[in-house]
């Protein structure tokens, strides 16, 4: 029982990280109509950007986090405006190929600058709190709490602001958005700011929980896609739920299967959903 609860904690932590990535991926997918294969590498970029600030200014990672987020969002917008924007008129699948190229470029730039070894924000091991026999680390509380705050903020943004509503409108029907006079490019830039920023947070959280590595984000791409598909493409709330489910299932599988195969579990779940319910597991209209 204790083991199960312990795995639940790990699952929620991992699920939070996956959710943050999946929400952005799902928004981008809904608005730009292509699966953004470089999303995992935006995680990595965010983690390393924060790392630079941590090392350079010798500050704790939470202080560096906003800078990492801002820099990553900036890079995401720059990539969109220089590369993706030029390809929007052609078939979406060309964007997909381009995003694979961007993924490799991002990863290689990180490798070029920081090498391919492991890095950490802070040396030393965090002592977990013991609570009713469960081990809980400070970082875990920060990750889960931070994710909850961000999800609430995102909800308010999408429901209450003009740009947020326009993002949902574009996700519904981008042709209609255009003839309604919505400034499509401006909304797309906002989409990248939010998607890239959330990816950076996810990457920083992931690096806090484990370590920095040039392929850390790419390795998480499959679970993130699985979460987005589970939740239904273009449905941010579904993506969050999908992320938590994927995180939990991945952790629950560890007593039975080598932890190395966690991504395979996400994949299996995704394939299952694609077979039984390709529109995602959540009923009701997309939001």
């Amino acid at each position, binding site marked *: 029982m204790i083991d199960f609860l312990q795995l639940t904690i790990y699952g929620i932590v991992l699920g939070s990280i996956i959710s943050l990535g999946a929400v952005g991926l799902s928004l981008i997918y809904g608005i730009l109509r292509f699966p953004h294969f470089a999303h995992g590498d935006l995680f990595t970029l965010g983690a390393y950007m924060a790392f630079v600030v941590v090392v350079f200014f010798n500050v704790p990672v939470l202080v560096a986090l906003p800078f990492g987020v801002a820099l990553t969002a900036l890079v995401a917008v720059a990539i969109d405006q220089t*590369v993706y924007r030029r390809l929007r008129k052609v078939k979406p699948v060309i964007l997909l190929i381009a995003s694979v190229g*961007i993924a490799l470029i991002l990863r290689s*730039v990180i*490798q070029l600058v920081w090498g391919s070894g492991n890095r950490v924000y802070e040396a030393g091991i965090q002592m977990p709190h013991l609570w009713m026999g469960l081990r809980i680390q400070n970082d875990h509380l920060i990750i889960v709490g931070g994710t909850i705050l961000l999800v609430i903020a995102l909800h308010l943004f999408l429901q209450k602001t003009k740009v947020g509503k326009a993002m949902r409108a574009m996700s519904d029907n981008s042709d209609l958005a255009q003839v309604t006079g919505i400034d499509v490019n401006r909304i797309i830039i906002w989409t990248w700011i939010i998607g890239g920023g959330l990816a950076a947070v996810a990457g920083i959280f992931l690096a806090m929980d484990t370590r920095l590595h040039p392929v850390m984000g790419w390795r998480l791409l499959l679970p993130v896609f699985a979460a987005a598909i589970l939740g239904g493409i273009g449905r941010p709330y579904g993506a969050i739920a999908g992320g938590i489910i994927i995180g939990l299932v991945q952790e629950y599988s560890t007593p039975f299967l080598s932890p190395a195969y966690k991504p395979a579990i996400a994949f299996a779940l995704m394939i299952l959903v*694609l*077979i039984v319910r*390709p529109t995602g597991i959540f009923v009701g209209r997309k939001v």
Partner: protein
Amino acid sequence: MLGLIDYAIFSLCIVGIYGLLSLALNIQWGMTGLFNIGIGAFFAIGGYTSGILTSPETTAHVGGFGMPIPVGLLAAMVLSAAIGLLVGLVTLNLRADYLAIATIGIAEIIRLILQNEGWLTGGVRGMANIPRPFEQITGGQFEWAFLVMLIVIIGVVFLALEAARTSAWGRVLRAVRENEPTALASGKDATRFRLEAFVVGCAIMGLAGALYAHLFSFISPEAFEPMLATFLVWVMLIAGGSGNNKGALLGALVIWAIWSGTQILTGYLPAELATRAGALRIILIGVLLIVLLVTRPEGMLSEESDRRRDRRREEREDLKD
């Protein structure tokens, strides 16, 4: 001097293997519009399958069974095709992007298996002593014979694909790719055609993997990076001209030359940077891909140029009648 020729022949063998991969991707992407980012996975399935079946008995991994090389090649194609069939059955009737996402899944799982299942694959140490063809008859100089064999295989695959491209089957694939309602309305089952193209492509990728294993006599997750190979093949096909079989081969040659050229260049870097040179090479190729997509998406030899030629030939034949 002899060393240089040997090097050239060995290089051509590698180009040939990439050429096969590029042709295989051309059936899937160029002709049918199916996005496959798991090329490296199918390649690895082929290489390891043939390796296990043909290598002499060992304790390092399961097998080897010492079977003849042709059996290994055939099995490599069958297993790659079977896995392609499974993936295709699940995803090909859904929206196109799902196949792309599913193929990352295949790539990841194959990578995990290669690394973690030492009993099956030899793990990170890899699989050695994979037999080379023609070794006895050529007395160690097997590369010549290998190259000839490879050229024959590529020739057969190329001619088959060219025949397919101009056949009714090829026309339906193109219609399926362009989502032409006429092809679908005329009672053609689009999913079936997609599945056929996908499976044939996977089989050829498996064959290429097996040939690679027999060329190097060794295969390991380190020596051969699936994601990098996948990416190179994509750049090759796009640079050469997707939809055009000659373009696929030309792209393999040109991009491989550029790729190896960058290796020579980065060889001049100071030692402390040399370890990171690999990353620099990938960045160069990545930028090349993006520049191609933005400025010349049809590639060196466009599909259109081929179809114009086909039409002219048809017209000439019509005139003769």
